[in-house]
């Protein structure tokens, strides 16, 4: 039983390791997040206005529940990083020159705080500094409110607002080319002509304060200052990502171990039952001596406990090792200052309890057998297996099989429950493989659609404020620019029924070529001449469809409203937006020809000249290069995907191996005499290996299509489960995915066959001459 025990220990170990790793990581993340938020006084509410006076502080502080307010200046900048040709972008936030801000305090990693005589000094994020190798005293150039400035780095820090440093408007993390910076408030305010004013605020609320009421009061108070809408902590992007990650870790910590422990219980049951069957004589002797059923049962439960204990120890050790690595991986993404891995006591308690439960459940069949066995019955050898004509006889297909083929098929059909559960377990492993590969292929598809069919521009430039159409000509005149496709982006509230959604109306001239509207499959969607096209996800969430009339309310002081018919829905991939022609938005905006930015096609031969010029253009808020964005996206998620994929393949193959190996070992034990007889009759080891493993092949071949179907269903269900405003995933299934999963399962089976074949070689033919089944 050693081989079976090892297989069971591995399956249990995998399940426990998964639970320990993810649950402990989850606990570490939660603890780190809570500690950090508490120590840094992470805000509860964020505001953005066009410009508002500092005098509003008292009014804001008078709102019930408000404990602290940090009013600051926040601006997007273009950054010129030494050694990089292409310009980078950044966000610069003001902080008090003396002391930390009252909300969202920075955690200094190196260097010093600002001095009262601060001049062009900045503190940069630790991630940005590390990615570029910056140290205190290094300088970077940036366009700050149209002014070319040399900024001196005086320190590096972490911020609770930037636990995840996502490039605004994208899903990318590019620590090398996205700078999070802080500057002394007076200095930054002066650069943006915001003395005595602010354009961004973060507010801390007392525990238990209803956030909704505070948001409503703030919106009403700040409407005339160009308020773009207050958001609560749950909508703060960095926090949202981290919280989603924590939630997913928690789910993974429950679902995956449950699957593994379920499979382990099944394997324990069939293995222990077989073991008890081979020990019938010993059980009979013990019963004859007067041992009670309880005492005998406890002995065999002990075997299950030993198996489970081995798996638990392996799982605890493995889980700790995996958890440490997992946490380090998180640390590369989530910039939390305190992130130590340790296994909470409750995790160990739950692990032990779950293991004991698995052991008891795994011994149920064996214990029932022991209890039912009268001592005299147990003294006799096990009754020979009874076969009758079955399904294949009734169907009349038995004649198409060889004798060996009939042995295989009848043995499978003789235990339909065991065969059925084995099929399901292997199908589950196959489904997991298909789902894992679907994620990989899906990310490839996202890159293909987003960066080759939607965004086909070389660069997208965004202005600090909308410009006149003259800007198109200015851009076209830049060196290397071959084509300019302007766009206007208008922040609006979309209203339908009782639902409201903050979104962006993007208007384009004619039918765009460089940056197109497209569905998840990459099929271009034309901007309707009349009405608007909306993201389908938003439409479904809000309950409107094609033909419905929605209301758009521009987010500015005037709050202009515009009713428009929805002409089309787009199953787009990123963000939730409204697309409209210039003709539609010009009615809405009552302004002609203004643009927020443009998509550019650049001659590769003149790329460097373009970089040189664009870095210094004063009106730029940001410039993003498609190729760089694509590479960043790929790099950001590839590591996670590779590790996830390895993880998925490893665990799925472990399930498949555990089931196939155990079934084959038990079959060898049950039918060892039969197989040895075949050897005596003149069958080779290869022949009887085929007979034995043929049963497993039948089970696998039955499992593969079920597994494919399961994988397809999981992959169809998953996008709807994880769809958010930021991201939707397309469903598709490739033949290659299904083939890969099938081949993996078959390879696992083949490897198992190698182990089984070694056992078959050791069959004792002599013993069979004297044995009696």
């Amino acid at each position, binding site marked *: 039983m050693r081989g079976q025990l090892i297989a069971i220990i591995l399956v249990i170990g995998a399940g426990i390791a998964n639970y320990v790793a993810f649950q402990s990581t989850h606990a570490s993340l939660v603890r780190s997040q809570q500690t950090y938020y508490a120590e840094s006084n992470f805000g509860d509410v964020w505001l953005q206005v066009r410009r508002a006076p500092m005098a509003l502080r008292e009014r804001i502080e008078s709102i019930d529940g408000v404990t602290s307010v940090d009013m600051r200046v926040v601006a997007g900048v273009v950054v010129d990083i030494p050694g990089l040709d292409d310009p980078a972008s950044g966000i610069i936030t003001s902080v008090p020159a003396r002391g930390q801000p009252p909300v969202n305090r920075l955690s200094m990693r190196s260097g010093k705080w600002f001095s009262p005589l601060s001049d062009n000094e900045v503190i940069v994020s630790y991630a940005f500094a590390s990615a570029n190798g910056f140290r205190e005293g290094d300088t970077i150039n940036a366009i700050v409110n149209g002014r070319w400035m040399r900024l001196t780095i005086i320190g590096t820090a972490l911020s609770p607002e930037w636990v995840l440093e996502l490039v605004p408007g994208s899903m990318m993390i590019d620590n090398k080319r996205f700078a999070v910076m802080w500057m002394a408030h007076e200095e930054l305010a002066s650069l943006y002509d915001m003395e005595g004013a602010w354009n961004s605020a973060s507010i801390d609320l007392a525990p238990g304060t209803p956030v909704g009421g505070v948001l409503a009061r703030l919106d009403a108070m700040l409407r005339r200052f160009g308020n773009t809408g207050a958001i609560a902590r749950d909508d703060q992007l960095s926090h949202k990502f981290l919280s989603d990650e924590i939630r997913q870790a928690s789910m993974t910590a429950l679902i995956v171990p449950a699957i593994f422990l379920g499979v382990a219980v099944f394997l324990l049951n069939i293995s222990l039952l077989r073991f008890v069957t081979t020990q019938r004589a010993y059980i009979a002797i013990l019963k004859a001596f007067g041992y009670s059923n309880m005492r005998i049962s406890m002995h065999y439960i002990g075997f299950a406990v030993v198996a489970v204990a081995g798996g638990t120890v392996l799982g605890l050790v493995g889980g700790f090792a995996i958890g440490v690595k997992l946490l380090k991986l998180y640390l590369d993404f989530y910039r939390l200052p305190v992130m130590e891995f340790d296994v909470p006591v409750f995790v160990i308690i739950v692990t032990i309890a779950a293991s004991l439960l698995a052991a008891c459940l795994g011994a149920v069949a064996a214990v029932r057998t022991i209890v039912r066995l009268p001592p005299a019955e147990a003294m006799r050898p096990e009754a*020979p*297996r*009874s*076969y*009758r*004509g079955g399904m294949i006889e009734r169907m009349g297909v038995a004649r198409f099989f*060889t*004798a*060996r083929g*009939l*042995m295989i098929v*009848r*043995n499978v059909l*003789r235990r339909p429950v065991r065969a059925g559960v084995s099929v399901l377990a292997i199908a589950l492993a196959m489904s997991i493989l298909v789902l894992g590969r679907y994620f990989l292929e899906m990310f490839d598809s996202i890159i293909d659609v987003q960066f080759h069919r939607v965004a086909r521009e070389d660069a997208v430039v965004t202005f600090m404020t909308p410009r006149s159409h003259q800007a198109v000509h200015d851009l076209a005149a830049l060196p290397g620019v071959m084509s300019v496709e302007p766009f206007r982006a208008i922040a609006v509230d979309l209203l339908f029924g009782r639902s409201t959604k903050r979104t962006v109306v993007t208007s384009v001239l004619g039918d765009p070529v460089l940056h197109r509207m497209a569905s998840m499959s990459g099929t271009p969607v034309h901007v309707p001449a009349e009405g608007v096209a909306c993201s389908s996800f938003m439409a479904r969430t809000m309950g409107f469809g094609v033909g419905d009339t929605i209301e758009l309310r521009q987010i500015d002081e005037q709050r202009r409203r515009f009713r428009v018919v929805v002409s089309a829905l787009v199953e787009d991939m990123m963000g939730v937006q409204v697309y409209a022609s210039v003709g539609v938005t010009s009615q809405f905006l009552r302004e002609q020809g203004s643009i927020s930015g443009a998509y550019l096609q650049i001659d590769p031969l003149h790329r460097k000249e373009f970089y040189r010029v664009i870095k210094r253009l004063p009106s730029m808020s940001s410039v993003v290069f498609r190729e760089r964005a694509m590479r960043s996206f790929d790099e950001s998620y590839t590591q996670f995907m590779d590790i996830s994929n390895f993880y998925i393949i490893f665990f799925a193959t472990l399930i498949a191996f555990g089931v196939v190996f155990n079934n084959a070992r038990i079959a060898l034990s049950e039918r060892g*005499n*039969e197989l040895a*007889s*075949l*050897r*005596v*009759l*003149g*069958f*080779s*080891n290869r022949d009887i290996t085929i007979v034995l493993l043929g049963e497993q092949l039948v089970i696998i071949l039955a499992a593969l299509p079920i597994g494919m179907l399961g994988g397809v269903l999981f992959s169809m269900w998953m996008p709807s489960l994880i769809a958010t405003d930021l991201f939707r995933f397309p469903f598709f299934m490739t033949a290659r995915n299904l083939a890969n999963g099938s081949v993996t399962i078959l390879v696992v089976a083949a490897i198992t066959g190698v182990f089984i074949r070694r056992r078959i070689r050791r069959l004792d*033919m*002599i013993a*069979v*001459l*004297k*044995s*009696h*089944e």
Partner: protein
Amino acid sequence: MHDQHSSRPVLFDVSHVTKSYRMGELDVVALNDVSLTIRESDLVVILGASGSGKSTLLNILGGLDVPTSGSVRYRETDLSHATDAELTSFRRSSVGFVFQFYNIIPSLTALENVQLVTDLVDAPMDPREALELVGLGGRIHHFPSQLSGGEQQRVAIARAIAKRPDVLLCDEPTGALDFETGILVLEVIDMVHRELDATVALITHNASIADMAERVIRMRSGSIVEEVVPVKRKLPRELSW
């Protein structure tokens, strides 16, 4: 030892064979300098009590085991130094086994059990014919669980003879059967020997069965102590124990 039918070709030539096993820290000598010949068409009964070495001798003759020393030749082939593949091939083509506990495949019908071995060899007997020969023509589609012990043993005999082996090796073929059924089985073995001219080597502890043999080899403690040619052979029907 006498070669009763010395004109018949020698099938097995066993010469000074010794077989010992390591059992923990002890060496157990199962066969001690055993020599004998078995000729074509012989019906030999090897008689001995438990531990006499008769099973070990049968194992070596059947290619299931090799001697520690000495030589065993089957016709011109040296079995003493054969590889596993060569022994498998030998068993497949030349030997029919009948076990004490039948060892027929429970998931196959009587017919399919015989087909299992006829699929292995060239020019086998028709499986139905083999089953008819042993009196099971009307039970060919029955599974072992639907057959009596004697019927199962007869299936085993049909399986053994269907591949037209050179020798039929029977290990206590009546050991698990009651008297009447045992006689029935012995009648089948006797019939196979007479009608198919098969060479039969049968091991047993039951001295009565030796009365049907052409030659009786008695073994004790790993050695042949006596070889007898019965004056008058009895028919199986005439045996009693």
